[in-house]
Every structure is written in structure tokens, then in C-alpha cells.
């Protein structure tokens, strides 16, 4: 286990509530049962202890140890109420796993009935149920997320670790025309990189949407492809998408939602709704489109990063 995972286990023990790790299908014993009946029940249900319940009230708890004792003494015909433990230590369902663990081992209890605020029995925890639940929390997907977090932690520090008056990380992507198998890969890589660099999620999403639209335009509307450059600085992200393709005649008209020159087959693929540039404009803090017929196209967009996360503008994801 790496150090990171150990801290994660500790964190889970502190932050996970008993309620989420307890077994809820509690096998209970009726006070009218004999120790012999309790023994059979435990064997059948494969449990090592059970609360003794008179209706909704817990009157005691009986364990396999009690059963073994009376078996030796030949007292299996005795009522369970004669051999059960009457002082039952319980735990609130809102307590932390840490509290349950310390009660279990310090006080020598093998199991703790879990109760709600009204003292009603809602579950039971044993060391086994807790270990299983914690292991479940630590599963593969979880570890993946942790690894991702660790990588992003390292990447995020670049702006502090590397000293200059203005540090910037530059990413370049070559986008091929009409290559629909790879279309979107640049946007995907940019999204992941920005996450690692610690850019806040709402801005990452805006950048991802804008870059993806820009990338699709290079794929769909040019015959030569183009290049996307991302310049990440501590306070802002500047992106440009440049191509030497056919260019645009009317740079005002193309910004209107719904305007598109995309052919039918592109529409069949789900593109060419004419929303791309409008989408980009909406996502970005600054947008500039430079183009003319026959002279290629250059799209410049900029995103402002504020440490408070407001990004200097209304957060697009909050408008929903």
C-alpha cells in the first residue's frame, strides 16, 4: 500500500458513518427461545451472536460464547434470558466507524447493535462487516480516482514550483480534416490536462465544450485540417485554432445560432446544427474570429481563471 492509500483508509474510518457499514438484515432472538434453539439458529444463519428482542425493545444480547458455555454445562434447555448479557452496549447509526472500531476492540465486544435516535435497532456491526464495507470503498474505481488525484496534485504545483515572471504551459494538437475517428481527441486531452492542472471543474467544462466545437470545425469545414494551441497560465487560458482552409465569407453571419454550411452527411452524424460558434462564444470569456475567403481561419478564445472560481463572469454551469 502506498502512503496515499493508508491516509485514505484513515480518512474513511473517520468520515464513514456506522450506518453505511452495518448489516441491516439483523437476525434477532425471541426471549422465549431456549439456548438450544439459539444454537441451532446461529448455526443455520452462520452468525456468532444476536440481540434478544421483546417486540421493539432490546432486552439483551447472546453470543456463541454463551452457547458454548451452556453446551458444556448441559444447560441447552435453559431460556436464553438466563444466559444472555443484559447490559447491551449499542452504537448510534450516525457515529463514525472509528468509534465503532474502538468500542469493539477496547471493550472486548465482538458485535455492536446499531440504534437510531429513538433507540430502535436498525442494524449490527462486527469487525467483519466493517472490513468488508471499507474494502468495498477502496475498490478499483476508487483507486483509479485516487491515482488521478495524485497526478493532478503534482501537475497543479507547476505554477508554484517553476519560478518565472509568467509561467505558461503550452499544449499543441494537430487536427486532421474529415478524420471522424480521431475527432475530439484533442478536446479530450485538453480536458484531462486542465483537470490535472487543477483548473476548477466549471471552467474545465466550458473549455472542453468550446475546444470540441472548434476541433469539429477544423475536421468538418476544412480540407487541410489545422492546429489547436492551448496556453495555460496561472490567471487565464488562451486557445487558438488555426487553419489554412477555405475561410469564411461573413464572420458575423456564421456566429448566428443555426447558420451552417455543413452538408447533409455531416448532419446525419449529428453535427452541422450551426450552433458551434455560438456555443464557443457563450462558453468563452473572450472570442475573436478572423477569416476571409481563401485565407484560412483563426479562432482565438480566452478564459479567465479566478481563484475564487467565479472566472470573472457568470459561471455557465450555474445558469442551468
Amino acid at each position, binding site marked *: 500500500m502506498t502512503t496515499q492509500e493508508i491516509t485514505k483508509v484513515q480518512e474513511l474510518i473517520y468520515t464513514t458513518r456506522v450506518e453505511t457499514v452495518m448489516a441491516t438484515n439483523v437476525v434477532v432472538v425471541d426471549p422465549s427461545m431456549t439456548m438450544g434453539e439459539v444454537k441451532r439458529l446461529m448455526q443455520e444463519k452462520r452468525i456468532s451472536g444476536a440481540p434478544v428482542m421483546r417486540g421493539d425493545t432490546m432486552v439483551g444480547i447472546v453470543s456463541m460464547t454463551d452457547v458454548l458455555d451452556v453446551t458444556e454445562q448441559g444447560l441447552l434447555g435453559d431460556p436464553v434470558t438466563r444466559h444472555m448479557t443484559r447490559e447491551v452496549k449499542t452504537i448510534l447509526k450516525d457515529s463514525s466507524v472509528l468509534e465503532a472500531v474502538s468500542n469493539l476492540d477496547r471493550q472486548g465486544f465482538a458485535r455492536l447493535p446499531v440504534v437510531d435516535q429513538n433507540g430502535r435497532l436498525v442494524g449490527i456491526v462486527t469487525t467483519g462487516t466493517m472490513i468488508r464495507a471499507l474494502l468495498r470503498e477502496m475498490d478499483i474505481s476508487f483507486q483509479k480516482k485516487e491515482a488521478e488525484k495524485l497526478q493532478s496534485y503534482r501537475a497543479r504545483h507547476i505554477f508554484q514550483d517553476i519560478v518565472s515572471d509568467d509561467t505558461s504551459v503550452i499544449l499543441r494538437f494537430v487536427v486532421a480534416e474529415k478524420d471522424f475517428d480521431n475527432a475530439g481527441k484533442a*478536446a479530450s486531452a485538453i480536458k484531462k490536462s486542465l483537470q490535472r492542472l487543477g483548473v476548477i471543474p466549471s471552467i474545465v467544462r466550458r473549455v472542453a*465544450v468550446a475546444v470540441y466545437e472548434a476541433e469539429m470545425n477544423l475536421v468538418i469545414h476544412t480540407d487541410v485540417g489545422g492546429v489547436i494551441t492551448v496556453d495555460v497560465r496561472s490567471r487565464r487560458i488562451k486557445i487558438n485554432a488555426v487553419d489554412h482552409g477555405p475561410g469564411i465569407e461573413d464572420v458575423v453571419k456564421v456566429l448566428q445560432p443555426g447558420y451552417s454550411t455543413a452538408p447533409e452527411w455531416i448532419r446525419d452524424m449529428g453535427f452541422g446544427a450551426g*450552433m458551434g460558434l455560438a456555443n464557443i462564444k*457563450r462558453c468563452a470569456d473572450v472570442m475573436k474570429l478572423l477569416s476571409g475567403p481563401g485565407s484560412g481561419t483563426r479562432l482565438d478564445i480566452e478564459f479567465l481563471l479566478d481563484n475564487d472560481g467565479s472566472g470573472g463572469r457568470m459561471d455557465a454551469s450555474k445558469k442551468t
Partner: protein
Amino acid sequence: MTIREVIEVLSGQILVDNHELDNDVPMGGAADLMSDVLAFGTEGMVLMTGLTNPQTVRTAEMAGIEVVVFVRDKTPPPETIALARDLGITLIRTGYTMYEACGRLYNAGLPGRGLVKIENNSW
């Protein structure tokens, strides 16, 4: 609504399983145009679509959508499945049409995002 309930309401079938079925989805949306998804899609929503090409999954990734439902029993090509596996997106298939899939989910209590206005790009 949980993903499990979405599947039940749609008599759906999981094609790529990347989420706990008890996870909640806050709302639903439908589109066959990827720019619509990028414009009106919201983080975490379930996307109903008739498009099955890999770009559908790409678009979902960019829009922060993690559950995609293919309507009319459309089977996506292997590239779409592979990309969804890679990107952690859950794919579901239903025999209902777009209209009915949406209607059933809405009826069962899964909300949409309400009115949207697109004049002067300010939606």
C-alpha cells in the same frame, strides 16, 4: 431517479456498465444533434439519443454526461462501446422511441432543464 430506475422505466438493457446502479441522475435530455447536447446538456444528465457513432460518447464526455440511452433498440458500433468503456460512460439501450423513452422518464419523475432561450446567444 437512480440509474436502476431509469433502466426499469425504459425496460432497458445495459451495454456498458460504468456506474453503480443506485447512483442518482438529476435530470434527462434528448438530442440527435451534438451541438444541442453541448449547448443544453447539463452535467450529470441522462442523454437520450438515436445517434450511435463514437462522437456521441465524445460529446457526452465534453458535456459532463455520464449516462447515455440509445433509443429504438439501436446497437452502437464496437468503436462506440470501446470509447465508452475507456471514458467511464454508461450506455443503455431501450426499445422505446425517443418520444416514448422521454415521456416515460418524465412521467416517472425525471425532470428536464426547463425553458431555454437562444436569442442573442445568451441561453
